[in-house]
């Protein structure tokens, strides 16, 4: 059994100004899973995700939300992004799990937990229909991602088989 510590910071970005796109490029293929944590500075931050610069209609997602009084579930198919936020109020904190991101045999599935202490909480599963290893991740907003938002990408290495 391996005892090597994992959960390593690959890259951290703090936005100096509002921007529509944040990209993590040249992601090494040396980990097993990736975790991206986004902490936005406003409640109204809405953003989505793309891989490897693919702007085709190769993405889909399914989500579950609760706002304190009711729950809802949504779906998007043949989309150009994986939707990460569904409420109009956005999601200031997101923890995005990307498993087996570097294999070249499976489509890539991601799980996200979104937390907003004021308006809603939810989770989301997204699919990128491509078997390529993920080498870049773009967070794209229909508006802008607010200044001061932090995005941290971590790598997790599995143990020995």
């Amino acid at each position, binding site marked *: *059994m*391996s*005892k*090597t*510590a*994992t*959960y*390593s*910071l690959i*890259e*951290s*970005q703090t936005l100096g100004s509002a921007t529509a796109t944040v990209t993590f490029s040249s992601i090494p293929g040396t980990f*097993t*899973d990736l975790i991206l944590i986004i902490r936005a500075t406003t409640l109204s931050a809405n953003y989505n995700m793309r891989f490897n610069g693919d702007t085709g209609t190769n993405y*889909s*997602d*399914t*989500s*579950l*939300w*609760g706002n304190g009084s009711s*729950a*809802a*579930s*949504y*779906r998007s*198919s*043949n989309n150009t992004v994986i939707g990460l936020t569904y409420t109009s109020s956005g999601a200031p904190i997101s923890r995005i*799990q990307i*498993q*087996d991101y570097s*294999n070249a*045999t*499976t*489509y890539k*599935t*991601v*799980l996200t*937990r979104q937390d907003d202490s004021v308006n809603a909480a939810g*989770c*989301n*599963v*997204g*699919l990128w*229909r491509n*078997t390529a290893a993920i080498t870049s991740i773009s967070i794209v907003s229909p508006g802008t991602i607010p200044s001061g938002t932090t995005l941290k990408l971590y790598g*997790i*290495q*599995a*143990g*020995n*088989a």
Partner: protein
Amino acid sequence: MSITKLTTNGIAGAKYDSVSADNYYMEPIATTLVGAGGTATITFSNIPNTYKHLQLRILSRSARTDAADGIALRFNSDSGSNYSWHYLRGDGTSPGAGGSATQTEILLSYDFAANTAGSNIFGIGIVDILDYANVYKYKTVRILAGNDRNGSGAVGLCSGLWMNTAATTTLTLTSYWGANNFLQNSRFSLYGIRG
């Protein structure tokens, strides 16, 4: 989470944090990457008791003749009716909830992929097993899992209980719906979390 190491690179304008906290609190214990023949059972045994929590990270597609499959979890090979579970899930149209008591295993989620899902589609899940080595508490797990199939699929939050105070030394995973193999490229990775 305890931070045990701080590093600084001191490079002005670098894209990395000027001071980064490397959270060396998570350690890999073991992993199973399923090979060409598939396998019906995943077992992690001789789990050390030196961590505070465990995390199981799953990428799975099974041979069940359906688009989705559930995964069941047992502790320490206990096949008695000592488990219960609850879930909250959304299928893209409506949310749903359910649960069951006095079960012989914990249902981690209904929403891993199976054999009639589109090619190359797998479901994924994160399973946290809290205070797994404590001998005074029943063991509780929480799960986030799902699979999207471009027009179908579901995502959900689940919880499970093993009504036994024994320290967890073995975890066993099988298809919830019978003897369905986990298919090639499925991966099950166990990690220890330092307290």
